[in-house]
């Protein structure tokens, strides 16, 4: 029973962090029709900035700066590189391929700088734990859940109540009609990329925090698990990204927690589980949990 609660809490924390990544991925797709394969590298970039800056600026200052710089980088990549291709569906495919190139360049440089090191981010939680009745939880996980909940609520409020959010949703529905209403497609798009960059930098902190050993050059790959979360949620649906992330996070934690019972599947099934779940969900709901036909943007 304790094991189960342990796994559920761990899964919730993991899902909360995946949600930050998946939400960014989905917002980019919704705004630009581009699948951002450089998302993991952006995340690593944000985490790396925190790692090198926290000695001088303190954790909070380093995190704030990393969030801003990663947001700016993502926005600039879109505005000055991807948007030159245009806004139509055909160029979105080309731009998706371009993000693979961006990923390779960014990742290579970051891997060169990080090497085989494990970088600490100087987060205030360290390896502290809190007793919650029968279970012991790492403070970093509680922080991940709390921060994600607040940030994600904020993002949904942006979608709902701001002009930018309305512009984004209108442009995702019908780009030309939105343009005719005077929506500046380029700015709305770049704004979405900035938001996604900021969310990725924030997620990096929690992916590198205890019980993870620290930030390594492969941290960006862990974020890959957020992709099946986005896809099984429906790719163009922020709500779907949230639900998908929780499903993936819980699955991963449960599979790892009950590894000994699942040994027939072999070791390391936890790495495969997100994709297995994605495939199962897509068999039943081909457009994802919240996809409907709205995801026909590709």
């Amino acid at each position: 029973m304790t094991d189960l609660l342990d796994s559920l809490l761990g899964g919730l924390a993991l899902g909360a962090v995946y949600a930050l990544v998946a939400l960014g991925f989905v917002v980019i797709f919704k705004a630009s029709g581009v699948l951002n394969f450089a998302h993991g590298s952006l995340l690593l970039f944000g985490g790396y900035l925190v790692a090198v800056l926290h000695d001088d600026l303190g954790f909070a200052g380093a995190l704030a700066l990393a969030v801003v710089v990663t947001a700016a980088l993502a926005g600039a990549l879109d505005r000055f590189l991807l948007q030159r291709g245009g806004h139509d569906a055909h160029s979105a495919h080309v731009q998706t391929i371009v993000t693979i190139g961006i990923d390779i360049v960014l990742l290579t440089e970051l891997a060169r700088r990080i090497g085989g090191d494990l970088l600490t981010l100087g987060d205030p939680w360290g390896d502290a734990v809190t007793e919650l009745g029968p279970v012991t939880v790492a403070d970093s996980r509680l922080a991940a859940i709390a921060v994600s909940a607040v940030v994600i609520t904020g993002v949904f409020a942006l979608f709902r109540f701001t002009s930018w959010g309305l512009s984004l949703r209108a442009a995702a529905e019908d780009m030309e009609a939105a343009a005719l209403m005077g929506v500046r497609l380029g700015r709305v798009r770049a704004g979405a990329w900035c938001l996604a960059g900021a969310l990725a930098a924030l997620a990096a902190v929690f992916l590198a925090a205890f019980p993870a050993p620290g930030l390594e050059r492969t941290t960006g790959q862990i974020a890959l698990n957020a992709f099946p979360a986005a896809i099984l949620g429906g790719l163009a649906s922020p709500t779907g990204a949230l639900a998908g992330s929780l499903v993936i996070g819980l699955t991963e934690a449960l599979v790892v927690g009950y590894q000994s019972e699942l040994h027939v599947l072999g070791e390391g099934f936890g790495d495969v589980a997100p994709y297995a779940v994605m495939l199962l969900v897509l068999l039943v709901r081909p457009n994802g949990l919240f996809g409907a036909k709205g995801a026909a943007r590709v």
Partner: protein
Amino acid sequence: MPEAPPDGGGPTLHVENVDVTYGRALSALRSVSLTVPPATVVALLGANGAGKTTLLRAVSGTLRLHRGAVTAGRIRYGDTELDGKDPVAAVRTGVVQVPEGRRVFAGLSVDENLRSGGLGLGRRGRAQVQEARDRVFTLFPRLAERTHQQAGLLSGGEQQMLAIGRALMAAPRLLLLDEPSLGLAPQMVHRIAEVIREINEQGTAVLLVEQNAGMALSLASHAHVLEVGETRLSGPAGELARTDAVRRLYLGESAQDQGAA
């Protein structure tokens, strides 16, 4: 072509000898000219592919989304140059297009669709929004009853009303309407025609693209007929409606009918 008296004040739209080319190769308009004086209705007729929508795109600044460009001529609204500008520039000067096929934001509520119509005005337009909303709800009481409904669930006629209402939220002085009668029941076409007349009587000029020539000519003071990218006929709507070519080609009358008449 005789100028209609500028009774409503405000700028006149001048389209002068405009050429439009898609993808640098496909010529869609050749030396097309027309004017829309303030507070008038001008109709633009023609078959599919004649270039009617292309002309509206050239005015509203959305050609670029279709890889098209104005390659010759100029488009002015009052003193503002519109050719080569983006759609925001058109919306800000008061020129707003209602796209063909309604194109409401299906997943958004009626209210959000209307809000989206005011997006181009930026911050300074906030004050106008409430006023514009009242105007829309007076014109279309049915939208006022359905503000929270998803736009995609409205009937075709209601969607057309919403599309026009959405454009009115930007407080246009010139409304570009692309086939507002398309796919609507005859009764609804009649209703839409009434609405256009009402909008015009409130002082908004209308450039009306239609295949339903009967409806368009009944509303317009002037009309132009496009044929494969060139102006074939233009003149006062009443005169055009009596010409043989228009009667035969666009009003659906056969040679025999004309003989009988």
